[in-house]
């Protein structure tokens, strides 16, 4: 990674950001009266705030650097991670699942499983989520330390400890509200910085047509400019995955698992002020998500065509993950450089904060309150949540170094998701649409799905089975996990006692707690169905343009 000539001006810009996020934490502290205020912002936020936080929580630096790496390595096909791997799932969450999440007044995603299936599935999910969340937080933290040490010459330990201390402070003080507010702020800083970088990079390579001409001359060739070329069975495309693996593995299992059951995301929607705002949260987030590929794929491609030996050489600056830092060093003068570094730091911190704020909520509500101490007052749970914030950060710091052994950080994160999220979606979707699914079916399916993902990965890494690429292996691992979970859930459910129908009120399809007229009284831009149609139409049009 290139080292920047950061000046005092750049450090002033970084320092202003740190002061701002800490200030938000201090202000948000005054709003906390009940445990719901601390863990879910008192369910009071307007849709535009939760919607931007929803997308910002996902716009961590791992995502930005990883997707720019994919842009350089796989070309335009990277858009599948957005238009196929995010948009449909976000629309599904808003339209179909949110009425059950928000309408049943659950406070976390595992809590849905407790109400729908019972304690066994709940405990399994709450524990595995807590573990996965701090691991991912740790990955973010490690990557942050690495980037700062390489870019600014800081000590890696100092960078990790400083950013961990800042996140710790503002979450302990202001809980979810300060996490969400800082995510919204981070969103605008990132868009401003990446927007400037992309504009300059495009001007330098001669605009879109200049970039396209040069990509054709690059190792990616013509295929690097198309999303769907070579996606036929047995076909050859840069990602190394055919359309079956891409559509079902990424577009269905991985993506729906991530967006609809990952509490670090869903928590933002649960903090919205009413059900309409909760439904609109992922839909409002989907609009920026449609256009984020512009901000990450283009830097990847520009790095590919302007940096000599990019992706093939062994120098730091030639590594795929360093596409964006390489362009920052190349193009940005002091001042703008400080803002871009701030954007990267901000997105790393937001990634850690999103995971830690989800972790403290699940540990407090789903483990401590449900199984250890259920009769304490608000102040006790707020206190416990603050302690768990500290614990979560400490574990994240401790586990940060697991990430060291992996070449492409994005693949590592996908791997974690295929263990924990992919099977989860099968359990949710079956529980939501099939009243017959039982208590034991739920937990057996979860265990089978997690084992399925784990075994697929084990066999692949030992070389027993092979797929087109690491990414294709993740896609197939997710498909196997989903299939194993679904089959075991159905078989075990049919062999065990169904739940009483009265217990499923508000939790299964056809029994949602909704006011069917509520949305019709609103203007069109506040109606989830209308927003969903616009988003899906835009996604289809974009896919056709880049076919």
């Amino acid at each position, binding site marked *: 990674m290139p080292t920047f000539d950061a000046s005092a001006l750049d450090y002033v*810009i970084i320092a202003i950001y740190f002061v701002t996020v800490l200030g938000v934490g201090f202000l948000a502290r005054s709003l906390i009266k009940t445990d719901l205020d601390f863990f879910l912002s008192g369910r009071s936020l307007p849709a535009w705030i939760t919607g931007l936080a929803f997308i910002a929580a996902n716009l961590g630096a791992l995502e930005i650097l990883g997707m720019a790496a994919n842009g350089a390595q796989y070309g335009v096909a990277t858009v599948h991670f957005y238009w196929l791997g995010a948009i449909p799932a976000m629309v599904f969450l808003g339209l179909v699942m949110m009425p059950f999440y928000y309408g049943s007044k659950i406070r976390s995603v595992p809590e849905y499983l407790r109400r729908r299936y019972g304690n066994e599935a709940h405990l399994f999910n709450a524990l595995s989520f807590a573990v996965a969340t701090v691991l991912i937080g740790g990955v973010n933290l490690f990557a942050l330390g690495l980037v700062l040490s390489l870019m600014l010459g800081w000590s890696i330990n100092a960078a990790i400890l400083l950013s961990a201390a800042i996140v710790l402070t503002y979450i302990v003080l202001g809980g979810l509200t300060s996490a969400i507010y800082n995510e919204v702020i981070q969103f605008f*800083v990132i868009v401003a910085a990446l927007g*400037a970088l992309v*504009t300059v990079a495009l*001007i330098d390579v001669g605009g879109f047509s200049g970039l396209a001409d040069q990509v054709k001359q690059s190792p990616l060739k013509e295929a690097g400019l198309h999303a769907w070329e070579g996606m036929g069975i047995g076909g050859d495309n840069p990602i190394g995955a055919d359309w079956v693996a891409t559509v079902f593995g990424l577009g269905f299992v991985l993506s729906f698992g991530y967006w609809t059951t990952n509490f670090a995301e869903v928590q933002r929607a649960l903090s919205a002020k009413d059900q309409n705002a909760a439904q609109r949260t992922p839909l409002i987030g989907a609009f920026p998500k449609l256009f984020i590929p512009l901000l990450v794929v283009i830097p990847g491609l520009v790095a590919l065509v302007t940096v000599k030996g990019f992706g093939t050489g062994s120098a730091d600056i030639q590594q795929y993950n360093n596409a964006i830092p390489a362009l920052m060093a190349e193009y940005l*003068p002091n*001042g703008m450089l400080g803002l871009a570094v701030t954007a990267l730091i901000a997105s790393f911190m937001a990634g850690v904060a999103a995971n830690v704020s989800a972790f403290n909520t699940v540990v407090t509500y789903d483990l401590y309150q449900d199984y250890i101490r259920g009769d304490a007052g608000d102040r006790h749970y707020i206190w416990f949540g603050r302690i768990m914030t500290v614990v979560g950060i400490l574990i994240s710091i401790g586990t940060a170094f697991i990430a060291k052994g992996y070449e492409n950080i994005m693949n590592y994160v996908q791997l974690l998701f295929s263990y924990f999220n992919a099977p989860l979606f099968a359990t949710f979707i079956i529980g939501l649409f099939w009243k017959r699914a039982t208590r034991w079916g739920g937990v057996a399916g979860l265990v089978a799905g997690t084992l399925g993902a784990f075994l697929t990965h084990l066999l692949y890494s030992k070389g027993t089975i092979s797929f087109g690429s690491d990414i294709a292996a993740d896609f197939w691992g997710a498909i196997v996990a989903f299939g194993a979970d679904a089959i075991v859930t159905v078989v075990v459910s049919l062999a065990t006692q169904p739940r009483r129908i009265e217990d499923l009120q508000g939790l299964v399809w056809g029994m949602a707690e909704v006011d069917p007229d509520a949305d019709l009284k609103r203007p069109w831009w506040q109606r989830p169905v209308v927003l969903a149609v616009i988003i899906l139409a835009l996604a289809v049009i974009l896919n056709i343009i880049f076919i």
Partner: protein
Amino acid sequence: MISTLLDIRRIIAGLLGVYGVILLVAGIVGSSESKNKAAGVNINLWAGIVLLLMATFFLVWALTRPLMDELDEAEAEGERPETAPPEEPR
């Protein structure tokens, strides 16, 4: 008072505004090397202008629809359905 300070639109306006001014000044007084580094574009100047426009947008939004009004409206919205009061005869 606290809730006015906590209006996220004001915080965004403040942060982007400060960044905008800093970059604008850097774009005006900077060395010719820094003005040309970005493929010949004075990116500090242009980014400063765009940031100031964004800050202005959030400030205007926050001032024209203060938080208290929004809260009142939200409450009114919640109460409106079903039983609208009968219109007063003139």
